[in-house]
């Protein structure tokens, strides 16, 4: 549980694990032996991939209680996402809106949708084509941090940008 939590809280751990796996594989076969030789970014992420977005840009933003307003720190993350999406125009994304567990089920589904929509609208305002962005809400059904205080609730009130590959 602790490992799971640390992975989900800290994308860097996930990135390192990926990098180690990749380099281990490469050295065993005496093939290209560094992320650079593999055409990867310094931390091992394939440019334009989910790992790249998660590690080098930031894949998620957080919200205040019962709010879908884009906070200043979130706006900075979304600005980077918009720039990144401009660099990889073939990528489509799914924005997953989530709520913490301190609400009722139907309302939280709608609140997650409202957060996903606010995120999508912000990205569109920064020049990302609306056709590239879909949204979904999981309400309070997918908490990443599980405890009964603000430290967890604040991590669960989130919108996560998920790369879906080439847009159609």
């Amino acid at each position: 549980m602790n490992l799971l939590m640390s992975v989900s809280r800290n994308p860097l751990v996930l990135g390192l694990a990926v990098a180690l796996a990749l380099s281990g594989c490469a050295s065993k076969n005496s093939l290209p032996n560094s992320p650079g030789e593999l055409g990867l970014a310094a931390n091992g992420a394939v440019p334009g991939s989910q790992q790249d977005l998660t590690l080098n840009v930031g894949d998620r933003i957080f919200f205040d209680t019962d709010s879908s307003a884009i906070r200043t720190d979130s706006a900075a993350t979304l600005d980077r996402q918009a720039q990144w999406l401009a660099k990889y125009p073939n990528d489509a994304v799914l924005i997953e809106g989530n709520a913490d567990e301190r609400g009722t089920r139907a309302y939280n589904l709608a609140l997650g949708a409202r957060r996903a929509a606010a995120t999508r609208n912000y990205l569109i305002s920064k020049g990302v084509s609306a056709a590239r962005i879909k949204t979904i809400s999981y309400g309070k059904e997918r908490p990443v941090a599980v405890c009964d205080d603000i430290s967890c609730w604040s991590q669960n009130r989130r919108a996560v940008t998920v790369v879906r590959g080439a847009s159609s």
Partner: protein
Amino acid sequence: MSLYRKDNQFPASRAVMAHIRLRRAAVFWAVFGHVLMASLTLMPGTAHAVVEIDITKGNVEALPLAITDFASKDDIGAKIAGVIADDLKRSGLFAPINKAAFIQKITDPNLSPRFEDWRVINAQALVVGRVTAEADGRLRTEFRLWDTFAAEQLIGQQFFTQPENWRRVAHIIADAIYEKLTGEKGYFDTRVVFVSESGPRNDRKKRLAIMDQDSANLRFLTQGDDLVLTPRFSPSRQEVTYMSFANGQPRVYLLQLETGQREIVGNFPGMTFSPRFSPDGQKVIMSLEQNGDANIYTMDLRSRKTTRLTNTTAIDTSPSYSPEGQQIVFESDRGGRQQLYVMNADGSNQKRISFGDGSYSTPVWSPRGDLIAFTKQSGGKFSIGVMRPDGSGERILTTGFHNEGPTWSPNGRVIMFFRQPAGAAGPQLYSIDLTGYNEERVQTPEFGSDPAWSPLLK
């Protein structure tokens, strides 16, 4: 509780009407593989006195009664008596007397009991019965309810059924006793559909499940591949509406219980959620989310026509019809926080009814029409409460870390809901009397949430 007697005439047509009712039940259940054949006979003689419980008061003192093991060749008679006793005891209105205190052993339930033997242990009422096998393999169950102090028979009925339906016979008998002694319809011959949850909190597997109201005969309706939420019973068919994330598309579905066939309700351009049937079973009312706003729609299940009822840039959800179908209660945060609103069935005349501290959500109209149950969030606590449809008379029934999602027993007497404790454990189902007394855990094999009570199985 006040115990009193009054003159009462048995309606002459009672047995006939009950007979018709149960014949209809036979058809209803045939599609489900539970054929129930029943016929009723009244014993000769007319009752002149009736033992009754006054359940209009707050804390009802349970009525002591004796439920004897039904005579039978095997243990089926004792099992049926046990289910009847458990049903009545769980209601909080009856106190079945410990069998060890019984003086008379009932060997022939067709003979008048020795009333003084039952009066002396303060059994206000006595239930006796017999179970025998018919030549065709069916189970024949007879029972009689006696008023021990008036020395009168109150009910005498018999049922024929396949042996595997013995629990249903017990629930029908418990309902008959409940109705006779309280004057209200029972709710024991009913089922509950809910979400069965397993696994860690950040990776919960959720499956739709259905069981009898006493937790027996549990059956899973989905296998846990897709996230499923908020199942609700059809008032008229063996059908459930619920929300599923199948194929990554969060939508409202219909599920036929007898065939397992499922379909998406309507062709909406966004997430549909929080479904519920209209009282006639012909419509599903639900929310549609588009670009972050949620509004309330209905879909007519015959014509497939959809109708928009609200038009806001807020979250309008959790719609629930009044029992006559004329009005709808729902929650909306159009005023800033979640509050309860009532509107006409065509969407006109939307009026806020909740004005207390905190926020109000998940309203459900009582089958009796006189109350609306809700979830209330206030001061970091989640409560279950009721208020009148005009918003007056708010009463909180239970408060704690997280109580949510009330559903009514079909007689409007009991509310079931789920409770999420703080910590790693998952949610559990509970029931509570309308008075706020007699809170009981509803047993489920896994964690449980989103309960919905079926109508009385007609």
